[in-house]
């Protein structure tokens, strides 16, 4: 089961060239700055854009120029969520939701309105005209509409980009929930590294129409060479297990590969597993264990490599903390003063941990 995508597209001043073999399930983020060709790639996979090459989705061929095979968009079992919700203004919320569903043979309907309506909390919206919905509500309806087409591939083109920060926070949990409960593979275009960290299992890094890197999100985020692409969100993704809670200080102790970390009190119970992100900018290093620091999360680590950061004054450190990679961003000056070199044993000081549920 895989997504086989080989597409090339020439436009004046822009060329796209992508050869990807992606896992046939889970969320794959197409990540890159604007103009990197991620939306063009998504549109070409859908058939909205005519690129040359080949698209095979879990064994089903949608396009193969060598065999002169081209399925028009309406004959591809896909769901597409555009940046703007693009609801049909002449239809009710319910009719919008069922637009694709009604066009499916009953045997091809894998998802049903009741289920999707309850997943996305759409029940209170059904009888409202689309014009009065908020941006976040509209996008939820658009997502539901795409899901009800029972797609074998769900394509999402920056579905949160047109929303403000609060609305985005409103939708992200729904997307996370879909991620865990849906079988179908998702291609998710984004230029927001927070979304990628929270949603994507795999990551394709695009720049100027070319694939720079592709792989597990966790591995790519921990690659110091790629850190520049993620800006302030560069950092590793770890899995932690709750050890115990400290109700006096309102803290929770997490067991990670390299030791244990204190984080703000979590509602989960001990033994539960959590995904956490440690950003490079939140990690500093010391030669000795600092006993008199306000930073209580200290992990022993070994320096693996040092590489240039986006700004000339900083270096990106790759550390090994108990077998797990850890990124740190420190100033070039500090690195010189501490005499850092690969192989050195250090203490990683972790200022903040972002928990991703």
């Amino acid at each position: 089961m895989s997504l086989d995508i080989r597409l090339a597209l020439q436009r004046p001043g822009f060329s796209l060239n992508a050869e990807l073999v992606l896992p046939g399930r889970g969320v794959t983020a197409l990540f890159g700055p604007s103009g990197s060709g991620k939306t063009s790639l998504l549109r070409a996979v859908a058939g909205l854009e005519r690129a040359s090459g080949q698209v095979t989705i879990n064994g089903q061929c949608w396009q193969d120029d060598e065999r002169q095979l081209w399925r028009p968009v309406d004959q591809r079992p896909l769901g597409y969520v555009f940046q703007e919700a693009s609801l049909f203004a002449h239809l009710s919320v319910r009719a919008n939701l069922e637009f694709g569903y009604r066009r499916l043979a009953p045997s091809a309907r894998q998802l049903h309105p009741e289920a999707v309506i309850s997943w996305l909390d759409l029940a209170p919206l059904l009888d409202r005209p689309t014009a009065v919905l908020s941006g976040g509500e509209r996008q939820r309806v658009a997502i539901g509409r795409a899901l009800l087409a029972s797609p074998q591939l769900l394509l999402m083109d920056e579905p949160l980009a047109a929303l403000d920060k609060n609305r985005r926070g409103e939708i992200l949990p729904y997307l996370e929930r879909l991620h865990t409960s849906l079988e179908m593979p998702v291609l998710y275009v984004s230029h927001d590294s927070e979304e990628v960290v929270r949603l994507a299992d795999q990551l394709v890094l695009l720049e100027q129409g070319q694939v720079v890197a592709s792989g597990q999100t966790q591995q790519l985020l921990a690659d110091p060479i790629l850190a520049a692409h993620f800006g302030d969100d560069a950092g590793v993704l770890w899995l932690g297990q709750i050890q115990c809670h400290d109700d006096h200080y309102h803290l929770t102790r997490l067991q990670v590969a390299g030791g244990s970390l204190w984080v703000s009190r979590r509602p989960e119970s001990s033994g539960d597993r959590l995904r956490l992100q440690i950003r490079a900018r939140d990690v500093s290093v010391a030669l000795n264990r600092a006993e008199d620091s306000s930073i209580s999360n200290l992990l022993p680590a070994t320096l693996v490599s040092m590489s240039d950061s986006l700004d000339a004054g900083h270096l990106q450190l790759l550390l090994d903390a108990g077998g797990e990679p850890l990124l740190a961003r420190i100033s070039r000056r500090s690195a010189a003063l501490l005499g850092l070199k690969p192989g050195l044993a250090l203490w990683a000081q972790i200022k903040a941990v972002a928990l991703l549920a």
Partner: protein
Amino acid sequence: MLGPDDWVAIWLTLELATITTVLLLLLGTPLAWWLAHSQSRWRPIVGAITTLPLVLPPTVIGFYLLLLLGAKGPIGQLTQWLGLGILPFTFAGLVVASVIYSLPFVVQPLQGAFISLGQRPLEVAATLGAGPLDRFIHVVLPLCRPGFFTAAVMGFAHTVGEFGVVLMMGGSISGQTRVVSVQIYDHVDKVQYAQAHWLAGGMVVFSFVVLLLLYRFNPHARSTP
């Protein structure tokens, strides 16, 4: 009051305008769609030709149609060869002339509606499994209804109001080509002012009601194409 000849002219006019409007919607829709979406280098040329009837004097249109469709004209020879006879001074000839004369009044509102609709709703419909005809019927038609309404009303009203082309192409044959505007001209020519008044006043009322409908049901309609 209106005489039997007047009623014949009124029915003929309505028949002509109805047939013309139906034909124009059928022909104008694909043409407007192409003008709205094509990237072809022919688009400006076709657009200009489509708009020509808007600016040319009706006599010019009528004159050239007469030459083209007449017994010695290329199209006239074609219609004769096809066994259709020649079109000038027949009702069919009037229909052809009216279609050309009112073309921009139908194409332009449709073209505007298609442009403002944009590609997005069609792309969305395609991703939801709707084929081309399905998209046209369930997305384009309902979302462009104001445009179709304006196009139909303008095409109809403009055909009812034509005079110069009819005179050049159709003359004044009762029950064949003598439409209301020509009938009014004949009444005035014969100094039958009372009958001319009935028809002319009727045209004023008709046109007013048509435009009122247009603005009442289509507040954003453009008054000029």
